[in-house]
């Protein structure tokens, strides 16, 4: 039973000795035969904008505090010291401080990342020198750096927005030359503009070599237009699929971006991976985009104009506002919230902080706690943040984290299609998704299986001297969940522990038993619905 087929990180780590196995394991079934040629850009499964038919209506579990709910929605999981911080500062001041992310000192974390994951900072021209032998190292470092920041960065809201825009402008890392290009996109496009201005972000993305490669725009030339980028630019990046563009607009926008490409190895005039506009392959005839006439001879400005029109378009404001509300509120946010956010987006000219400010002021954001099932990245980082915020992230355990997040189905930069990981709870709260969380909760974080406890949880400070089943359950629930348990659910856990430990609820436990009981309680709590809602 506990043998071959089951979840066994130790065996996985032992097996994953080389790049081939890593790619096999993390390639999600995508072949990697043609390294230089882009793999087909689309083809993943999954549902579309969905209905969230499993939404929690009248939850019988007690609501958390407003402060907890805000932290749960704007971070990768509440941490005790942040709960203290938000309680002292107040919600408004806390969120303002988070939005001013550059004023939050995160130097030691960034120094760690420089030291541990240096490839994530390298330019395409550096990375191409080691390509394709460095694919494994680039992939592992990109994923590890992302997980590391989500778990330990003090700029939590910023990291949430980095994840949001990484999905919005999704680029699959394992995609032809992608491993040499995505690190630059991550640094200079997504992280540079995550809390900046949407128009700047859009322009940077359009010129990102990773995007030009992933969505085939490097093929796009006057004699042979390729519509892939043009379509996704409007459908996924700006207007939304119902944003009011036609098939003809797709063709016209594709013509506007002819000649937008990147410098390939050996090309003259600069470094590999730089954006370059090649005028001779640009379609320089007149164009008509969303009712706007472009005179012939516009050159590179054709594409720039398209980006400006799209960034300022009302459909874009609505589309971005809808996605943000879906991220921070629920799968079915109130229209009034979307309208308020869209209005702030428009009035501010796409300033992301102003847009978020409007969202954070809505009643739905502040009051409707427990409206959504967390995604795996929040679950994983949230467990570490709740149970062991001071734990190390030992590089030799890095592969374990990759494996776990891959099992949960949300490995960073591994969603193959341009729509990014889904943000609907019906997608994540499946039978398989729940079981994986349960198993991981139990095996890896409860310290139950010697050698498999990846993070070292120190329960003693959480216990604060608690030494009976009743007091242990209360202490651990308070420390790990930071929100109240219902009396029924508390009773289930107490009954179980009494049976496991063969004691009564108020009997003083033998030395060492409170810690053992804590591990069991911790595993159950992070498996429960209390931990998975935000």
């Amino acid at each position, binding site marked *: 039973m506990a043998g071959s087929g089951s979840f066994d990180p130790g065996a996985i780590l032992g097996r994953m000795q080389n790049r081939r196995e890593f790619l096999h394991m993390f390639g999600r079934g995508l072949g990697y035969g043609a390294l230089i040629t882009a793999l087909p850009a689309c083809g993943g499964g999954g549902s579309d904008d969905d209905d969230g038919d499993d939404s929690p209506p009248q939850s019988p579990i007690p609501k958390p505090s407003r402060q907890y709910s805000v932290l749960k929605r704007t971070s990768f999981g509440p941490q005790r010291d942040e709960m203290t911080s938000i309680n002292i500062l107040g919600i408004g001041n806390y969120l303002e401080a988070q939005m001013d992310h550059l004023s939050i000192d995160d130097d030691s974390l960034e120094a760690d990342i420089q030291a541990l994951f240096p490839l994530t900072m390298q330019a395409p021209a550096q990375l191409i020198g080691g390509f394709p032998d460095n694919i494994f190292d680039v992939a592992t470092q990109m994923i590890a750096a992302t997980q590391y920041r989500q778990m330990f960065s003090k700029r939590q809201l910023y990291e949430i927005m980095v994840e949001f825009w990484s999905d919005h402008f999704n680029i699959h890392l394992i995609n032809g030359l992608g491993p040499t290009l995505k690190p630059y996109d991550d640094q200079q496009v997504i992280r540079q503009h995550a809390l900046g201005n949407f128009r700047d972000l859009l322009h940077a993305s359009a010129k990102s070599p990773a995007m030009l490669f992933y969505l085939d725009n490097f093929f796009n030339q006057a004699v042979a237009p390729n519509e892939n980028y043009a379509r996704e630019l409007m459908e996924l990046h700006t207007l939304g699929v119902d944003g009011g563009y036609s098939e003809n607009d797709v063709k016209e926008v594709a013509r506007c971006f002819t000649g937008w490409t990147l410098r390939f190895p050996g090309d003259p005039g600069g470094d590999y991976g730089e954006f370059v506009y090649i005028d001779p392959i640009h379609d320089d005839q007149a164009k008509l985009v969303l009712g706007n006439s472009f005179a012939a001879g516009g050159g590179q400005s054709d594409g720039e104009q398209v980006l400006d029109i799209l960034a300022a378009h009302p459909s874009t404001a609505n589309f971005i506002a809808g996605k943000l509300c879906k991220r921070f509120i629920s799968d079915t946010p109130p229209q009034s919230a979307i309208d308020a956010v869209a209005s702030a987006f428009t009035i501010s000219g796409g300033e992301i902080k102003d847009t978020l400010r409007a969202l954070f002021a809505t009643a739905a954001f502040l009051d409707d706690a427990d409206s959504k099932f967390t995604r795996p990245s929040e679950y994983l980082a949230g467990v570490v943040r709740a149970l062991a915020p001071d734990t190390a992230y030992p590089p030799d355990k890095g592969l374990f984290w990759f494996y776990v997040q891959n099992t949960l189905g949300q490995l960073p930069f591994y969603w193959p299609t341009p729509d990014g990981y889904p943000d609907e709870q019906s997608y994540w709260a499946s039978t398989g998704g729940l079981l994986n969380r349960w198993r991981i909760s139990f095996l890896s974080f409860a310290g139950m299986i010697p050698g498999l406890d990846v993070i070292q949880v120190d329960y003693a400070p959480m216990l604060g001297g608690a030494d009976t089943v009743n007091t242990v359950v209360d202490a651990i629930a308070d420390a790990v969940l930071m929100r109240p348990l219902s009396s029924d659910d508390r009773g289930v856990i107490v009954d179980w522990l009494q049976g*496991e430990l063969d004691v009564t609820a108020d009997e003083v436990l033998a030395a060492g038993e409170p810690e053992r009981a804590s591990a069991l309680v911790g595993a159950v709590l992070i498996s429960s619905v209390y931990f998975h809602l935000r």
Partner: protein
Amino acid sequence: MTGSNIAAHPTIPTDRDILVCIFQRGAADGLNALAPYSDGDYYGHRPTIGLAAPGNPNGAIYVNDDYALHPSLAPLKPIYDAGDLALVHATGMPHQIRSHFSAQNLIERGVVEKTGPSTGWLGRHLASSAPASSSAFRAISISGNVPAALNGALQPLAIDNLNDFEFDQDIIDSGYPRVLTDLFQSAVPFSAAANAALSAMDELQAADLASITPDNDAVYPANSALAAKMLQAAQLIKSNIPVEVICLDSDGWDHHESLPTYIDISLTELAGVLDAFYTDMGAGMARITVLVYTEFGRRIAENGSLGTDHGTGSLAYLMGGGVNGGQVISDWPGLNIGVNEDLQITTDLRTVISEMLDKRLGGADVGNLFPGFTGATSVNAFLG
């Protein structure tokens, strides 16, 4: 256990086939899978990537005087000749959406516009009849997530790997699953999914799928995600678990460039998987229907990157003992149209599905399945 036992599966009503749906994600090109090589315009639109006519070097496989199969689909020809495979050409959902994500959503919901039910056509079909048993396995997607087509069914399962859906013995011994069961017993959010997961685990443990091996010397392709899932589908069908509907995804059909290279890989995998499953099931195929479909087809003309861009009509595959096989079902629209045009849809996919559910899955309430659909409800694609 041999495949023939499926026909006598104790818990499935005798008027229903087991349905296996394979969704080709990414919009599969039908014109290079089943080539209309006699259409005078085929090679004009596809001068570089078009399949060579039968009899030529690397030629396509002769099916009839109008159509020929991609050479990589060779394993399907004997199934076609045995009358257990029908090919529906120029089929799809009649709309003008060319977004993968929107079109997948439409076809899975069984609608041609954004409005209409949010549930899926399979979900509505399943909800219209009572389950034959209390098993958690009436409908399952062998993937991490429930596809839109199954939405509306009573708690469909989504399990990525059936052979790994279990707790270790250490965990079971700790009483942890029992605590979870108790914690999810009240109407907390996701209690239905949680309880389905816990029940499914019990059923799988009793069924011991790993002990069920391919019959009739069937060999599933190696290193194939689709094959691994199809093998699990076969194991599930041959177990005592009364599954009725199984959904699988086949990824990577969006061949915007270098189509000949990539479609060869994709079709080889698809044909190998269908052939292995057909062999494995043996006589059991009498009670199984396999449907292979995609969100839309691709442009008639090749693009400048030796690929094809998004279009409309494509190809669907129907396999099973109840299929009126050995025929290409198509009211061929012809390719004598402009370069930027699409393969016109002349057989609505809803027609094919309506007939399939009516004749093979216990009946079709077409008005509920496909609201607003007024087209034909049969193209003589199935027996029964």
